[in-house]
């Protein structure tokens, strides 16, 4: 009934109250604490920080609880908070060669300086539901090894010594790094902005696109040169002091994909790079990102742009899950004014057709 449309204010308040109730659930069950989420759902926290573009475990954990575990909703909460924060400065580039490594694997070399280290991975677990976890049973302390003084150079740096892989872009090559959160994007993008967009892009979307390149939609012949996970120092140059000060450490996952490239008239044959870097521990995201990064460099290498994963405007415009969830879900907002206009025109066209038919008969 028309009158029932009224009362939006009360309806919203009641809906919020009901949502809070459902979020809390049975009051007999202890409420979740932020520390529990950080400790026991760490990978959810990592994803929330990565796609929320804010390295803050407490806030990510709060967002996860507040969103009832809906990670895209949690990412949205973090983003909306992040955007209000003042910008004090830009850190110096993090140095992943100096990472305090927790996991490091290479698919291209059996052994390499610094060694391979499996770290906390699901890789060789058998995916069997575990009653011990359900019972909250005790977990034994892990085996640790003493910190390894041996340097673990990046695999791509090892290849670069021989000139077998294209040189890495350095900060000096492009001192003026863009910032997609501060400047509107202007296509075509440089790689710095593309990587920023990919780093905060939806894991599922990038996973599907990366997968599509493996199935022949822009094949790039990828090898995992190296995946490393661990903590790196974040430093800020303080102009007044004349040197960089450490702000703390963040855990990141880095994936260096090594891809085939035939070379050209100007460039001798060498491998090319696809790069992935994500906050926290997220190999799937870092690998997908590096596949997409390489595919999106098609223009740079003079490759034909034939597949979705190579199409910069398509990929970058649709990878942000906060944007896409908002716009998809906005369809549930009222559209009756526009629908009325469509109703009217369909009725009119039907009437006209009817008249014409009668006239013809």
């Amino acid at each position, binding site marked *: *009934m*028309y*009158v029932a*449309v*009224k*009362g*939006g*204010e009360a*309806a*919203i308040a009641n809906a919020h109250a009901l949502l809070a109730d459902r979020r809390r659930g049975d009051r007999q069950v202890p409420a979740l604490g932020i520390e529990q989420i950080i400790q026991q759902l760490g990978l959810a926290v990592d994803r929330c920080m990565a796609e929320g573009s804010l390295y803050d475990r407490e806030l990510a954990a709060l967002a996860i609880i507040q969103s009832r575990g809906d990670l895209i909703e949690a990412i*949205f909460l973090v*983003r*909306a908070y*992040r*955007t*209000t*924060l*003042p*910008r004090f400065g830009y850190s110096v580039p993090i140095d992943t060669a100096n990472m305090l490594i927790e996991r490091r694997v290479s698919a291209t070399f059996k052994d390499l300086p610094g060694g391979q280290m499996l770290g906390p991975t699901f890789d060789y677990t058998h995916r069997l539901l575990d009653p011990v976890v359900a019972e909250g049973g005790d977990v034994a302390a892990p085996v640790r090894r003493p910190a390894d003084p041996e340097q673990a150079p990046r695999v791509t740096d090892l290849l670069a010594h021989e000139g077998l892989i294209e040189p890495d872009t350095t900060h000096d090559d492009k001192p003026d790094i863009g910032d997609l*959160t*501060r*400047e*509107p*994007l*202007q*296509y*075509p993008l440089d790689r710095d902005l593309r990587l920023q967009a990919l780093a905060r892009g939806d894991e599922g979307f990038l996973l599907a696109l990366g997968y599509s390149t493996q199935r022949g939609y822009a094949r790039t012949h990828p090898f995992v040169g190296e995946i490393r996970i661990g903590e790196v120092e974040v430093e800020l140059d303080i102009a007044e002091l004349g040197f960089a000060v450490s702000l703390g450490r963040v855990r990141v996952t880095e994936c260096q994909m090594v891809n085939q490239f035939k070379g050209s008239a100007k460039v001798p044959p060498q491998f090319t790079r696809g790069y992935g870097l994500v906050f926290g521990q997220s190999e799937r995201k870092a690998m997908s990102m590096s596949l997409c990064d390489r595919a999106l460099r098609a223009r740079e290498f003079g490759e034909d742009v034939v597949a979705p994963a190579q199409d910069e*405007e398509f990929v970058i*415009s649709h990878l942000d899950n*906060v*944007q*896409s*969830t*908002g*716009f*998809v*879900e*906005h369809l549930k*907002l*009222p*559209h*009756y*004014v*526009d629908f*009325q*206009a*469509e*109703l*009217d*025109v369909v009725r*009119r*066209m039907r009437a*006209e057709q009817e008249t014409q038919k009668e006239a013809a008969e």
Partner: protein
Amino acid sequence: MSLIPSYNFAYLDEQTKRMIRRSILKAIAIPGYQVPFASREMPMPYGWGTGGVQVTAAIIGPSDVLKVIDQGADDTTNAVSIRAFFAKVANVATTTHTADATIIQTRHRIPERPLQAGQVLVYQVPIPEPLRFLEPRETETRKMHALEEYGLMHVKLYEDIAKHGQIATTYAYPVKVEGRYVMDPSPTPKFDNPKMHMSPALQLFGAGREMRIYAVPPFTEVVSLDFEDHPFEIQHFTQPCALCAATGVYLDEVILDDHGGHMFVCSDTDNCEERRAQGHRGHLSGEELEAAE
């Protein structure tokens, strides 16, 4: 000032406001041209008015009076939610009366009551690019605007005529601003297009997800695209509002039962209420309606 100390006046930080304000000024200087801006995440989802909200947040001050409508109505849930947001973060007075508002944020309608000089109408825009459904690439549509290459749009409208005997675009009907830029008026019904032409109010358009701001200054030519043999025309309703008997206004169809019973009522709730307060009565207005229930 702000009731939640941890957030800023009107939610946005000052640097963001300055960035949006600079974009608004350029938008005003180039009517109908889409100025790119570094849209921020807002505490409501993209597609739910973040562009309009950012524009409003950048212009609003403590002495403003804000009205928010969605589908012409002040009481639709999203309008209520956005109005409550500004009441909270900017502590401004709000109103449902078009005449009392200094800023009106809208989704999908322009109020029936003619706007006045000094008022600002802020549109929420989902897809700001009028050429988007003809050409999905931003790099291409930018060029088309630069070269004033709007032939494709005319072809599309003409195809409508060929196929349907009339232009089938009923909302988001493209307009040309000041003889230069083709502009998307946001998904307002084409019924509202003529209200944009030479309006004394400033019209600002914000598209958050698509990161565009554009504007139509007061007293600016806004012409709906058409053809000599198929001139632009707006929707006409065959019956008046069932509640206030208004004619020449946009009506919503309300379904009354499952036997095809329906009535038409004003989409602009404020206009309808004012008319009823003045004593206008439609055939299903208040008293009769209650009796019918």
